[in-house]
């Protein structure tokens, strides 16, 4: 069978026409994911893509793997069930800012805190695309949309801060136009044991075009972002001359030589959290890369271990014993 040979990106493309808008950031994410997954050495029949509802959630239809396009916001619950019932499967979940943080915020919180071994791609375009342009839980305050004609009054979610607060064991951020970075980030997520959340800044060309230009534009990117690479100095800028230092509950800009070495596995998620809060400061670079990566017990392994232990301790249950137990009496 073809599965015994290494997969190529092409093997993971399904026979369905991709139906996102021309120029949508989703194309590059699909492409990167196919590339990364092809390189994992996992046969495609062991892969399951699960999604909710929204533009991003069409993703499973384009993957030549198993897949389920479920209902709005609930993909984490389906993914949890799939993984619990068959832990051998490699389960990826595709969601968006509305699906994952608004209608499905509850399930997102719980899959992260349980540490189910599922990789989660959160496409954040800061807008509702499939319903044609309403503000989302990540839209910036003041954004004018059809449902916020005078500007959105909502304060937005910070997806990385949210995930850290949920106790996520792996949290990262990348950008749809930064292909090399995206592939490295997805590969790191794939390698993580436990739930991994990757926020992907994704441009919606129709309803929120250019929302990430001020940091993601190729000419600005080096100065306006900083890549959090575990074990590497927090250095950024075209000339790699600027750096960051975590001090107390804040982050300070320093010359490159004084920069901290980034650690994503500190006992407290504090450094990752203060780093995630830089979003609100336009004078600071926007952190991308790996905010947090720590080892923790994996939910699906714990659940399956209990089933194994129970069988080992009590023996595999027999139906007759299920019926004929407790106080019985005979009627003749």
């Amino acid at each position, binding site marked *: *069978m073809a*599965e015994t040979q290494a997969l190529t990106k092409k093997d993971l493309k*399904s026979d*369905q026409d991709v139906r996102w808008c021309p120029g949508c950031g989703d194309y590059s994410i699909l492409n990167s994911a196919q590339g990364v997954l092809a390189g994992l050495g996992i*046969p*495609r*029949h*062991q892969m399951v*893509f699960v999604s909710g*509802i929204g533009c991003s959630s069409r993703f*499973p*239809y384009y*993957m030549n*793997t*198993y*897949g*389920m*396009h*479920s*209902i*709005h916001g*609930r993909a*984490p*619950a*389906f993914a*949890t*069930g*799939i993984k*619990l*019932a*068959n832990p*051998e*499967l490699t389960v990826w979940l595709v969601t968006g800012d509305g699906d994952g943080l608004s209608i499905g915020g*509850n*399930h997102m*919180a*719980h899959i992260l805190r349980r540490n189910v071994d599922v990789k989660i791609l959160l496409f954040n375009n800061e807008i509702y695309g499939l319903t044609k342009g309403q503000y989302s839980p990540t839209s910036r305050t003041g954004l004018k949309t059809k449902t916020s004609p005078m500007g959105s009054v909502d304060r937005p979610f910070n997806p990385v801060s949210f995930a850290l607060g949920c106790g996520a064991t792996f949290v990262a951020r990348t950008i749809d136009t930064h292909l090399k970075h995206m592939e490295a980030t997805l590969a790191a997520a794939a390698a993580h044991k436990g739930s991994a959340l990757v926020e992907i800044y994704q441009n919606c060309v129709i309803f929120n075009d250019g929302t990430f230009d001020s940091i993601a534009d190729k000419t600005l990117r080096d100065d306006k972002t900083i890549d959090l690479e575990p074990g590497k100095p927090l250095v950024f800028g075209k000339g790699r001359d600027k750096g960051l230092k975590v001090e107390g509950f804040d982050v300070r800009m320093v010359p490159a030589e004084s920069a901290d070495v980034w650690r994503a596995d500190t006992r407290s998620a504090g450094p990752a959290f203060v780093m995630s809060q830089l979003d609100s400061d336009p004078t600071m670079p926007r952190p991308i890369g790996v905010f947090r990566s720590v080892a923790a017990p994996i939910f699906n392994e714990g659940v*399956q271990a*209990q*089933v194994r*232990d*129970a*069988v080992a*301790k*009590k*023996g*595999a*249950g027999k*139906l007759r014993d*299920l*019926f*004929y*137990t*407790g*106080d*019985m*009496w*005979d*009627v*003749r």
Partner: protein
Amino acid sequence: MTQTRNVGAELPSQQFENVVIRFAGDSGDGMQITGSQFTHTAALLGNDLATFPDFPAEIRAPAGTQPGVSGFQVRFSSSDIHTPGDRPDVLVAMNPAALIVNIKDLAPGGIVIVNTGQFAERDVAKAGLKSNPMTDGTLSGYRKIEIDINDRVKRALEGSPLSPKDVQRCKNFYTLGLMYWLYSRPLEPTIAWLKDKFGKKPELADANIKALTAGFNAGDIQELFQARYEVAPCTTMVPGTYRNITGNEAVAIGLVAGAELANLKVFIGSYPITPATSILEQLASYKHYGVVSFQAEDEIAAICSAIGGSYSGYLGVTTTSGPGMALKTEAMGLAVSLELPLVIVDVQRGGPSTGLPTKTEQADLLQAIFGRNSEAPIPVIAASTPSDAFDCAVEACRIAVQYMTPVILLSDGYIANGAEPWRLPDVDKLPRFPAKFTTVAPEGGFLPYARDEKRARPWVKPGTPGLEHRIGGLEKAHLTGHISYDPENHDFMVRMRAAKVAGVRDSIPTPAVVGDKQGDLLVVGWGSTYGSIASAVEIARGKGQRVSRMHLRHVWPLPAGLDEIFASYKAILIPEMNLGQLARVLRSEYQRHEFISYSKVQGLPFKTFELNDKIDAILAR
């Protein structure tokens, strides 16, 4: 037998065919344990029995108040019975609130046993009463037995290492001992239970056993009663091995059995909700049966995880009650569209909204059959008694697996918490319906939405090489399962799903009519009205009335042959604990018949006499 067994045997012993006892006290008084222990012993003695626990939604409402009253009614009999009885013959009242809430139900001339230790002025006030019911005439017409159980227990446990507060917590076992004496029951089963339960706290086991024995001995010593009573073992029960079972236990066991009969394991994704919770609890203890249990973050995640479990090749199960059903609605629609097996257990309770969480109601029939967006047919079956819930759970699994469909199993609070003897099935005689997983592509290629003779689509586990495919909630093209917005295809698929579920009818029997094949009146029921209807029809027929009955297990799709049955009676009566939901369904399905709806929505089952009054009224028309 204990040595106490024959003491006091000089009192005359009276035989009764059946007796109804209601234990009533504060939520913290342990009345549910007292009742279930009495039941347990009655079962071991071979009585037929039925129970009706009735307790408040609050775990501990303020002590001594009427909302805090918890009751447990048990009927035990030497003949076949169908209900826990209309009226208790004996009421045990641990405080004024318990007395006043329950006294109106006591049969005229019935025995009321009152714990006078709990009838001080402040106790009467706590119950919200202006006068003491012991002395104000409330108890006239009843046989009143007064015992200061507080004091008796204190004396019985003199020298006990327990605190005075803990000593008082043994009151319920004193009461139980007294009832064991009165009805000539052995203490051993309860003593064994106490030793097992308090294995790690022998001082508690010891204290409760002392209280139990003291209560039993009091019957001899205190000359409280003029006679002892006996209820002989039931001789009309079908031969076999029995155990006592509640509806929720039967559902849990039935789901494990149903899955095994399909060669599957259970995946239960549930969220705690009264009165369904104990099914999840019990299944969580069946891990050695391969059960994967997942307590989800909410009702929606619960059903979604179960669908995920089914997708991976388990038998997905979710358990809930009315409010949870409402939340699961959208996911049920997805399950209809995905065409995966799934069992949804709805243990109904009083509604709307939070309603009456601990009280029973046939609340959700219409929600179960119709409560989804668009055309989303789901087979619905309803358990009629605690032991029937086992067979219904197995049947739900069968339909789910054979037809690749979600199935709704309706139970209710009355069945869930009520208990009756269950004749244990012979494992080898249970029906087998092995799931068929597709593992290789058939000739011509794999089609995820091709169909077999039951219109079921193939079930493929992720992980199967070469059969990778995608499923989802968007409309699918016939055969390929690809997304399709084609108008003709949508029309075809809507009709296909409807035809598949309607086709379940081909696999179910026409329900039996009990009584005459034709007559003046047919009483049609579904769910937990079974016992009341069976009793009432028995009584009516005993009076010579031409009344028959029929009970529906499959409420959607309805079985074949009903139209002809309905045509054989002059009138059709449908008693329901709702405002006529089955009547509404039958009126739309069988328009040439008239259905008389008889409703009661009090959070309580029908009393047999209420149905007989209604039957009499119809026949007198």
